[in-house]
Every structure is written in C-alpha cells, then in structure tokens.
C-alpha cells in the first residue's frame, strides 16, 4: 500500500467512525441518561430559576420529580422565550412540524385552546381527569377545558389584583375594604394628583385588560368560543364593550394613566406605581415581591380587581400556566405521570412560595411558606380573586382576535365609543380572510 493510499483509507475510516458515532449519539439521546431512565423534555416558560434547578423554579420541580420517579424518567428542561407570543410561536412551530420530542409543555391558557383544537395535545388518560382537577380553583379548570373536555393539566393560576398605596387611598377617602369601581379610582387619582398603572401597550397584556373590563360588565368578547371562524359571534359591539372603551379612554386621555400609558407593560406600570406619582395599579401577584423599597412596600395594600359597573362583581383576569403533553410525544403516559408529580400539592405550594406564581390548588394557600411570601391576607385575596377570575375567550382564534383587538384599541388615547364596533368588524374580517393582520 502506498503512503497516499494509506492516508486515503485512514481518512475514510475516520470519516465512517465519526459519522457512525454521531448517529449513535443521536439515538442515545432519545433513550435517556446513563441510568436508563426515559428522557422527557419539558418546555418551560422563564420563571425564578429558568434552567437553574437550585432556585425553586420549574427546573427544580423537574429535578425533584425525576428523582421521585425512581429512575422511570428523567425530565430535561428547555427554556422558552420571554413573551407569551414568542412562546406560542416556538411551541406552535414545533407542534405543527410533528416534533416527537414535545413531551411536556408549559402553555399559557390564552393559547392552549388553539393547540388543543388543532389536535396537538395528547388526550388526558382516562381516570386521570379527577387527579388533574382535584382541589383546583374553578377558573383554572375552565381555562384548561375545550368543548367540555379537559385538555391540559392546571399548574399555576394567575390573577390580577388592585394594588394601592394606603396613604393615597386614605387621602382620597376611598374605602378599600369594599370593592371599588374604575370610576372611583379615576376620581381618586384625579383628586390626589396620582396615577393608575395599567397595561395598554400593543401586546397581550392590553387584551387582558380589555377582556377584564368587558367581562366585568357582564359581556364577552366572543359569545360562542367553540365555533369555527365563519360562525363566530362577537360581543364587542355591545354596552359592555362601550363601557370598557369609555374607561380606557378616560384613563388614557385624562392623564391618570401616566405619560406613557400607550407603551406601558407590566414592568412599566409597576415602575410607575413605585414612583412617587403612583397611586394605584392593576397587576399580577408578583408585584408584592417585586417592590424593592421597604417604605413603599409598607404602604402597599391589595384589593379585589376594580368593578367596571358599580354593584356588579368584577371578573379579574386569569392567567398562569398549564402543563400539556404533545400528541406526537413518544412517552405520553410517562409524561402525564410527570405532569401529575409536577402539579401535586407539595410542589405547587413550594413553587408558589419560591417563584411568586400562585398555585391552582386551593390547599397551597394554607401552606406556611406561601403565607410568608404573600402576607397580610394577600394569599387569601389571590384565592378569592381566582374564584371570580374569567379567562380570556377560549377560542382557537384568540391569537388573531387578541392582536386585532390590540391594534384597534391602540393607542389608548384614540379609543372612542365607536372603537368596539370598528374592532369587531375588523376581527370578523380578519378571521374570514377578508383583511390582513
């Protein structure tokens, strides 16, 4: 054999070996870790620990449940993007492509209906339904149900509260022990020259606010969420819709929403609330833990979400995360076992205390660590608020409806009593392919 021929065959052998080991490595990663456990992939939304398993976030639950499974499965976490819309896009692309690695997913309830309707979720195993709905707040079960069937496992359940500065409420003579209305809040803010933090940027959070205002007036953005797009009936062009528009317009144009109301998300509105100008804020429960200044924190109180119509109980926004299992997953049964472990009472309470994300299980609200993280009756208030909370319309088209809604209601200073009717027409056109979004 000449030297050149030897070199060529050596190179060929090297190439064969390296390609072969790549293929083997590719197969190996499917069967799991060294101890023989089946590898499950959990796509988690960012939280307190992200991919770090030492902070008490979803990564910690993944680790604890892997250990508790006794070597049956090993959950690996994959972090999703920050915004709910980007999370949806990434999950959707994988699900639509038939990715077999979509074992467990943390899904925003606003989009779980869309995925469930498309058949992307594996059906809940018979007999597990009672386990997954056990002790859960009703709003979390409602949000995980599509066409009368449970499609995902309620994990944590979010709701917005009305946060206020006790000093400001006192100065305005507002009795915060009783539910207050948006009208009262606006008047109090004007009287004390303080501002109300709301979310009215062009993003999902704005739809959350609009939906809460409309449901609070007894209305619904979508009257028949189960319908297909051609038969859908919208409820925006209604008294409830016009009441919501009037409140948005008043907050935006009277200046009580702050100078940058049209670009305020949760963080911006929280910053406004913490500033000396802040008086009131509607925001998720993480607010309390996020207030850094102890002087401000001592002055902060929480109350149930404001009423759209005086005397009609408000319907606070519902949020949170559900655990879903992909229909193309190779380990559906194991994944549902893992989901059961992730959402058990002990883990939900621990997760709530560590991450500040409220549990969907009622028992968690009596947990000592939870009561320490949410003191002064805030834990009980969250629980009450969750009972009254209304999810966003559980229609497969919510993504489009929400975007169209935000566009037509933006900037909030331009909202008039005609806005709901215009938005409704636009949404129907978009759904029927007669307008671009």
């Amino acid at each position, binding site marked *: 054999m000449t030297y050149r021929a030897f070199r060529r065959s050596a190179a060929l052998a090297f190439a064969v070996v390296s390609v072969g080991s790549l293929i083997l490595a590719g197969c190996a990663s499917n069967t799991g870790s060294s101890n023989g456990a089946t590898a499950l992939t959990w796509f988690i939304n960012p939280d307190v620990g992200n991919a770090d398993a030492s902070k008490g976030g979803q990564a910690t639950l993944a680790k604890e449940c892997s250990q508790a499974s006794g070597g049956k499965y090993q959950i690996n976490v994959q972090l999703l993007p920050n915004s709910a*819309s980007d999370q949806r*896009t990434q999950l*959707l*692309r994988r699900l*639509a492509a038939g990715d077999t690695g979509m074992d467990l997913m943390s899904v925003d309830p606003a989009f779980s209906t*869309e*995925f469930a*309707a*498309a058949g*992307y979720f594996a059906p809940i195993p018979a007999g597990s339904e009672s386990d997954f709905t056990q002790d859960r707040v009703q709003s979390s079960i409602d949000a995980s149900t599509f066409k009368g069937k449970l499609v995902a496992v309620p994990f944590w359940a979010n709701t917005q509260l009305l946060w206020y500065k006790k000093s400001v409420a006192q100065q305005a003579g507002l009795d915060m022990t009783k539910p207050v209305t948006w009208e009262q809040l606006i008047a109090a803010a004007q009287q004390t020259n303080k501002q109300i933090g709301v979310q009215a940027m*062009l993003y999902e959070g704005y739809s959350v606010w609009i939906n809460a205002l409309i449901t609070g007036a007894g209305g619904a953005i979508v009257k028949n969420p189960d319908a*297909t*797009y*051609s038969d859908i009936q919208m409820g925006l062009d209604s008294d409830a819709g016009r009441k919501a528009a009037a409140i948005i317009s008043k907050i935006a144009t009277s200046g009580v929403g702050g100078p940058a109301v049209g670009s305020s998300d949760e963080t911006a509105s929280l910053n406004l609330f913490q500033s000396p100008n802040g008086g009131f804020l509607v925001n998720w429960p993480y607010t309390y833990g996020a207030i850094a200044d102890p002087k401000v924190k001592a002055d902060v109180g929480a109350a149930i979400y404001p009423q759209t119509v005086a005397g009609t109980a408000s319907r606070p926004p519902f949020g949170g995360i559900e655990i879903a299992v992909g229909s193309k997953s190779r380990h559906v049964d194991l994944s549902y076992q893992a989901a059961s472990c992730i959402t058990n009472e002990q883990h939900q309470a621990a997760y709530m205390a560590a991450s500040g994300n409220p549990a969907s299980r009622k028992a968690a609200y009596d947990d000592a660590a939870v009561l320490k993280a949410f003191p002064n009756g805030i834990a009980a208030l969250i629980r009450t608020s969750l009972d009254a909370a209304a999810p966003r319309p559980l229609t*497969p088209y919510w*993504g*489009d409806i929400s975007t169209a809604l935000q566009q037509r209601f933006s900037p909030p200073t331009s909202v008039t009593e005609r806005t709901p009717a215009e938005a409704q027409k636009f949404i129907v056109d978009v759904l029927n*392919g*007669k*307008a*671009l*979004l």
Partner: protein
Amino acid sequence: MSTAVSKPLMSDRARSERSLGWRLAGPAFIIMLLVTLYPIAYAIYLSLFNYRLTDPTGRRFVWFQNYITALGDPLWWQAFGVTVFITVVTLVFELILGMAIAMVMHKIVIPRRTLRTVVLIPYSIITVVSAFSWKYAAQFDTGFFNHWLHTLTFGAFDLNFNWFGGTWTSLTVICLSEIWKTTPFMSLLLLAGLAQVDSSLEEAAKVDGATWWQRFTRVILPNMKAAIMVAMLFRTLDAFRIFDNPYVMTGGANRTTTLSMLVSNETINRVEIGMGSALAVLLFVCVLIIAAIFVRGFKVDLTGGRK
C-alpha cells in the same frame, strides 16, 4: 439569431459537447429545479386556499380571494410604501457614499489592503447584531444618539427623544443602519467597475483640459455603467426584502412593517398558510418586476461584464 441558424448545422463535436454539458450540469439542474421550483409551485398552490395550520378542517379553496384581499388591504399598501421608501432612500445614499469610498479605495495605494478590510467590517457583521447595536444606540435610555445630538446642538435636542416613537424617526434609524451596513458591498462592486475603466481614456481627457467633474461624468461613469447597474440591481433586490432591521428595532410598530415582515407574520405567527403564501407570491412578483425593469429597461447584462 445565430443559434437558430447554426442548429441544423451542428457538428458531431458540438453535439457531443452539448450532451457532455447536459450530463455534467444535468444533475445539478434537476436538484435546482427540485429545491427552487417545487417550493414556488407549492406556494402558488397553497395561496389559493383559506388554510390555517392549526385549523386543518377549515381549509377551503378560495381561488384568488387571498390576492384580492391582500391587494385591497390598506396594510399591504402601507407595507409596500414603507418597503419602497427604504429601498429608494438606502439605494440613493449607498450609491453616492459607495461611489465616494470606491474612488478613495481606487486612488489610495499605500494602505490599500488595510483600507479595504476596514471598509468591509460593517458588511461582515450579522444584520441582527448590527440591528441590535443601532437599536440600543438610538434608544433614549441606553443610547448615545441623543447625548451626541444634545451636545452638538448646544442643548437644543431633547435628551429623552424617542426615536422609535414615530414612523419617520424609526425609518430614519432603520435606513441609517441599513446604509451603514451595506455601503461597503456597494463600494466593492463599484470598485470593480472603476478598475475596468481604461486609465488612458482618463489621461486623454485630462490632456484635453477636462475638469475633474467632466472626467467623472463623461469618462468614468459612462465606462462603468454596467457595474453601477449590476450593483444597483443587487442592492435593490436585497433592500426590497428587508426584514431584520425593522423586525429587531420596531417589530413593525408605528407603521414600519415591511413586506417581508408581513409575509412572516402571516405564515409564522398566524400560521395562515394560504394568505402567507399569497403574500409571498406577491413579493416574489414584485422582485421579478424590479429585476425585469433593470434587465430590460436599463439593459443590464449580468453575464457580459462591461457594456
């Protein structure tokens, strides 16, 4: 038509050369057809449906309804206007700046390599990275734009000016970033054209007493017209598909959506495959029209090099 005449007279050698050519290029040609023609044909087919990926049962054949909807929608025309605006503005500035840089590179001898490398740096940066750099540079909280303008105007410029608060200011930053990034590409193409200009022509003009401007407009430019046209064609087609810069900087807010962003929004975010495909086909047709205008209208010869 020389080929038509010579065809029946083709010699055996020419025929075997042709068949060899087909055998050599054939496989590549077939693969090209598969990877380009098939997706294009599939997109055209899909564009005739009202089809949402998450709602397969709702799929309906609607003929050309998607095209009618798109072309009758204000959003399409707004995106079209923004895209044309960005294309024209960046092309004009890139042509002028690129020409100036090309002439400097052509004349300067000493640090020639270093100069050419330095000029190319912006072009070698990934568009998304440059878009983020320009975004942070222009934002009022993290950026230096406002501070510089504030100092340069002796305090007249508002430190809290929000560049991304309005359509025109957003487009200004987008265009600046685009010009900064792709001018080097333009100047390199123009430099190649400059190198083709016969220096004796220029010297003759000089001897005849032509001024610098006369030499530039009468001798240099006409002689590098082909290079300029090729550079303009490439840049126009490229600029017309702009996506990264506005996507990163504004996300399409304040009416800064471009056609490519519209297509991506329909297909990727809304998974409206039918409408998205229709928009993609329309964008493709726009690009074809631009290419046709350049090739036919300005007689750009892409294969012949000069003239």
